[in-house]
């Protein structure tokens, strides 16, 4: 792999940061258009009820109200990512299924008028029995939330590899534990907002989103508009974390209102609405049974995981699978069975999250430590023994092409003196280790690949056009950096046009960790194709062989005699004179097995490559209060190559906050179907004073297919940080936890259980 790089691998200032530090970056709620209306949504006060009648007449009479809609104004088309999950009409006409569900909406000249009008909408409901707990929901006789799904089982993922029962029977050590975890709030700082503008038969939309193309498709279906008439536009996004991947009810609401009123409509959710009515994270119960040989080799795993799926399918099959896959992509399981059930309840819509599956992953890791200890091993040894290596296949037949797992385990443990400290924890001080692997992109049908169009402008500046999306993690800056490296043009001379469905090609978006491995790869290929054209002309003009031409700082030059050079702008002008301007396309389609299907055929190559990582948490527990403090947190991450190490560190540090410290603070609290903490006061996003000192270690494995060797950067830490914390608590207390987050009351219970206090 080429290592003499000019800009890739450097700590560059992100291209989007100037606008953000000056307050000029525009987010959806900042948009204002002439004649724009403000929308408000009437929401269900019932967890489960039949809709008998919705009367909008009085609301429409309020002066200043320009449109009012309910599900009866749409086509009732139900959206779902898969054919077998099409159950979400966004505005339903038959029933409501959770408190806060969108029922009707108005658009008015201002917010106060819209709010007044909402109070005049009359909805007749017939309340139905509701169910909030997935175990109850699966029982015979429980209220049916969707008639199509028996026992409210939305998705059942069944994976069975090898002979689990036989291997378990022969294992030296077998252990089974059950772990629960509360669902979390995404708590992205920007509450959901959408602007819809229907003009001349075209519907333009702005909203924070991770996948504009799939959203445009969903809206075109639901609104019965041709796909080319629905255009999702680029806008800054104030965070997504997996919660803005799919079409949202607000998108349909704003669109219908704009179509009806013939004016632009802006809908901005309140913080509470963002928490109750956009997306939430799954609560879960994971039962983990593990069989080990005497030498610590895992011979069998048997999993049963129940996901509280809320009222609709959402990304159901994917959400039910991912925790399993990120684990089997990390460790060798010769025999493994996974039964994942996603169960409907009368709670909000649940989606994917950056640290989705914490009960399952933290449970597995902590159980492994306890078993290792029984066998006289430590967490480092057992992980090195069972960890996958480059060239190996996962249990479900994905090939690992580059793997720095071992290096991350060693780096993180050496940096923290882990082995010694784990073996002899001082009183209520513990260390814990979490490992995981992450797929860089996963099967999304024909949306799995990305393509890029690049043109070199007459002044030598560059425009790149790609469907890639940035939700704040720095993807835009990353592809500009890649283009700058390939074309030898400074980042400041490169314009990016992205995430606009009209001008960009299909792209997975900021979803499935595809941006670096897939999106940036397409940009690299397109720029390499443009580079060939530049080099050909420069070679001719400078009288230097093509192989000896370098591009740097906007100049084409002879590598052997650097004073032989010319500005790239001259090359471009020459190309214009020849009637062949320098434009190029490039695409990248990852090596994925497209026969793979989440439910019916859960095997085959999952992703083009996998990233790896190890986190080590250090915790101190207050023996009297159970409060955990975290003096230090260390994460080592194989991200292939860090395109911008500063950005990768930022992702890792943010992950330590959102998954690591969150493991002791964050969880949604419920009273039946009522979310008790739909705010930023009682939902505990960690603050600066709650953060540990953080060490981030970047390990380069140089993926053979990744752009400059790069893979996904950061999510690995998000998926292993809570395991590290949970394992550290187990190390400090000598007891296994049963429930996350590890709030002080739960920690006290662990301490008392150990002491035998009633």
């Amino acid at each position, binding site marked *: 792999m080429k290592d003499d790089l000019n800009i890739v691998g450097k700590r560059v200032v992100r291209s989007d940061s100037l606008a953000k530090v000056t307050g000029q970056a525009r987010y959806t709620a900042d948009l204002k258009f002439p004649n724009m209306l403000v929308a408000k949504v009437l929401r269900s006060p019932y967890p489960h009820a039949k809709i008998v009648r919705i009367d909008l007449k009085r609301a429409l009479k309020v002066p200043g109200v320009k449109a009012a809609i309910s599900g009866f104004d749409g086509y009732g088309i139900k959206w779902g990512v898969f054919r077998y999950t099409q159950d979400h009409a966004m505005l339903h006409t038959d029933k409501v299924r959770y408190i806060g569900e969108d029922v009707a909406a108005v658009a008015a000249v201002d917010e106060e008028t819209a709010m007044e009008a909402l109070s005049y909408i009359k909805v007749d409901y017939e309340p139905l029995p509701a169910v909030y707990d997935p175990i109850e929901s699966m029982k015979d006789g429980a209220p049916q939330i969707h008639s199509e799904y028996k026992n409210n089982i939305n998705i059942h993922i069944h994976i069975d590899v090898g002979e689990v029962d036989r291997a378990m029977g022969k294992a030296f050590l077998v252990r089974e534990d059950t772990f629960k975890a509360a669902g979390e709030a995404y708590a992205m700082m920007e509450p959901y907002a959408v602007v819809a503008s229907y003009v001349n038969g075209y519907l333009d939309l702005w909203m924070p989103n991770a996948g504009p193309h799939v959203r445009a498709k969903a809206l075109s279906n639901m609104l019965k508009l041709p796909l080319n008439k629905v255009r999702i536009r680029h806008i800054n996004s104030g965070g997504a974390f997996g919660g803005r991947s799919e079409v949202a009810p607000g998108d349909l609401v704003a669109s219908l209102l704009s179509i009806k009123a013939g004016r632009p409509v802006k809908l901005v959710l309140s913080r509470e609405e963002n928490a109750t009515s956009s997306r939430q994270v799954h609560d879960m119960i994971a039962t983990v049974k593990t069989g080990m040989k005497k030498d610590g080799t895992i011979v069998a795993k048997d999993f049963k995981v129940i996901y509280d799926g809320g009222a609709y399918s959402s990304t159901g099959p994917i959400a039910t699978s991912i925790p399993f896959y990120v684990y089997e992509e990390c460790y060798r399981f010769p025999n493994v069975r996974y039964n994942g059930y996603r169960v409907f309840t009368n709670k909000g819509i649940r989606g994917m999250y950056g640290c989705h599956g914490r009960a399952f992953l933290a449970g597995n890791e902590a159980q492994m430590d306890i078993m290792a200890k029984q066998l006289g091993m430590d967490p480092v040894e057992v992980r090195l023994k069972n960890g996958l290596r480059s060239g190996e296949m996962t249990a479900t037949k994905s090939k690992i092409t580059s793997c720095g797992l071992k290096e991350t385990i060693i780096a993180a443990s050496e940096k923290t003196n882990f082995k010694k400290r784990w073996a002899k924890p001082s009183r209520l001080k513990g260390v814990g280790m979490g490992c995981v692997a992450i797929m860089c992109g996963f099967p999304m049908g024909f949306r799995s690949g990305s393509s890029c169009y690049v043109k070199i402008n007459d002044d030598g500046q560059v425009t790149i056009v790609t469907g890639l999306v940035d939700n704040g993690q720095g993807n835009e800056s990353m592809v500009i950096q890649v283009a700058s490296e390939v074309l030898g043009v400074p980042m400041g001379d490169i314009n990016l046009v992205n995430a606009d469905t009209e001008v960009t090609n299909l792209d997975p978006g900021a979803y499935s960790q595809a941006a670096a491995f897939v999106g940036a790869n397409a940009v690299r290929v397109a720029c390499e194709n443009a580079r060939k054209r530049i080099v050909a002309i420069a070679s001719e003009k400078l009288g230097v062989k093509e192989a000896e031409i370098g591009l740097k700082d906007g100049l084409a030059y002879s590598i052997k005699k650097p004073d032989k050079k010319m500005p790239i702008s001259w090359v471009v002008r020459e190309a214009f004179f020849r009637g062949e301007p320098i434009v190029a396309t490039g695409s990248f389609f990852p090596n994925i097995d497209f026969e793979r299907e989440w439910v019916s055929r859960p095997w085959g190559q999952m992703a083009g490559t996998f990233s790896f990582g190890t986190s080590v948490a250090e915790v101190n527990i207050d023996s009297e*209060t159970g409060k955990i403090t975290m003096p230090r947190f260390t994460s080592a991450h194989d991200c292939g190559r860090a395109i911008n190490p500063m950005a990768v560190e930022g992702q890792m540090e943010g992950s330590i906050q959102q998954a690591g410290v969150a493991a002791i603070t964050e969880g949604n609290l419920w009273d039946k179907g009522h979310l008790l903490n739909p705010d930023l006061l009682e939902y505990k996003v960690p*603050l600066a004073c709650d953060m540990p000192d953080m060490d981030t270690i970047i390990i380069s494995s140089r993926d053979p297919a990744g752009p400059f060797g790069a893979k996904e950067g950061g999510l690995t830490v998000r998926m292993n940080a809570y395991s590290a914390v949970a394992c550290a608590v187990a190390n400090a207390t000598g007891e296994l936890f049963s429930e996350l987050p590890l709030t002080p*009351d739960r920690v006290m219970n662990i301490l008392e259980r150990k002491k035998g206090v009633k």
Partner: protein
Amino acid sequence: MVLPEFEYKKANSIAEAVALYKGYKGKAKYLAGGTDLVPLVKLRLSAPKAVIDLKGIKELKTISRGDGWLSIGANVTLFDLKNDPAIKGYFPALYESLDATSCETLQMRGTIGGNILQDTRCLEYNQSLQWRTARGFCFKMGGKTCNVVQGAKACFANYCSDNAPALITLSAQAKLAGPKGARTVKLENLFTGDGKKPLALEEGEMLVQIQIPLKKTKGAYEKLRIRDSMDYPLVGVAVSVAGTKARACIGGVGLVPRVYDLKNVNDAAVREAAEKAYAEAKPVANATLTPAYRKKMVGVLLKRAFNKALQEGK
């Protein structure tokens, strides 16, 4: 989130404020820092016809010493008060409670008066109108029963001032002014135990001054919270010791801060107070941690606060 309609009036004297209040026939609210009031109005838990801004009243902004008292104007911000050298030197419990209140930015806006006169809090109460409508109005909102303790015809919301318990341990008194004139009450007598009206203020009465006997104390404030900034107390325990006498006060659990006087501070007396405080604390499931745990922490933090207060005094 937009506010409902109300008028804004600014008063330059206490008399003017009270006169304005009378003009609105009890439908007005006094406004100081607004960090408690504005969220309540946004949630439609308070619906004033007018707010009367007290920040123009000069005498509410001063800290003065005289006749053996430290007198703190109700509009002194928590941040300014914390940084007054007298506080750290004389009243460590109060210093620590101020430092533990919310976050620095809100300490700079919030006032000591507003902090003391804050409404009680509950996970099922501090919610939007839509949320509460879906849930059904509770006792405190004018409904029939509590939403947390099923069937109870009472309120179990928590009084979450960090500073009132500290001030109570310092035997502070509150100087009040209102349509019926001025009066001074012991701070611990400001609480009614009635969830619908937790503070014993007369119609139109405002807090003018907090007065603390100016003598050196040892003390500490222990606060149970999830995050080390921004959070309200899940339990707050203040302890002040003067000579052999001591006082502890428990906040964050229930409507009324509970006071424990110790005639002679020694290990046995502290243990006894801790046991009593533990036994008398009746938290319910209306805050982020379990009631059993919060109850336990009342005793634990009381002992801890005493240890800290007495150790730091040495």
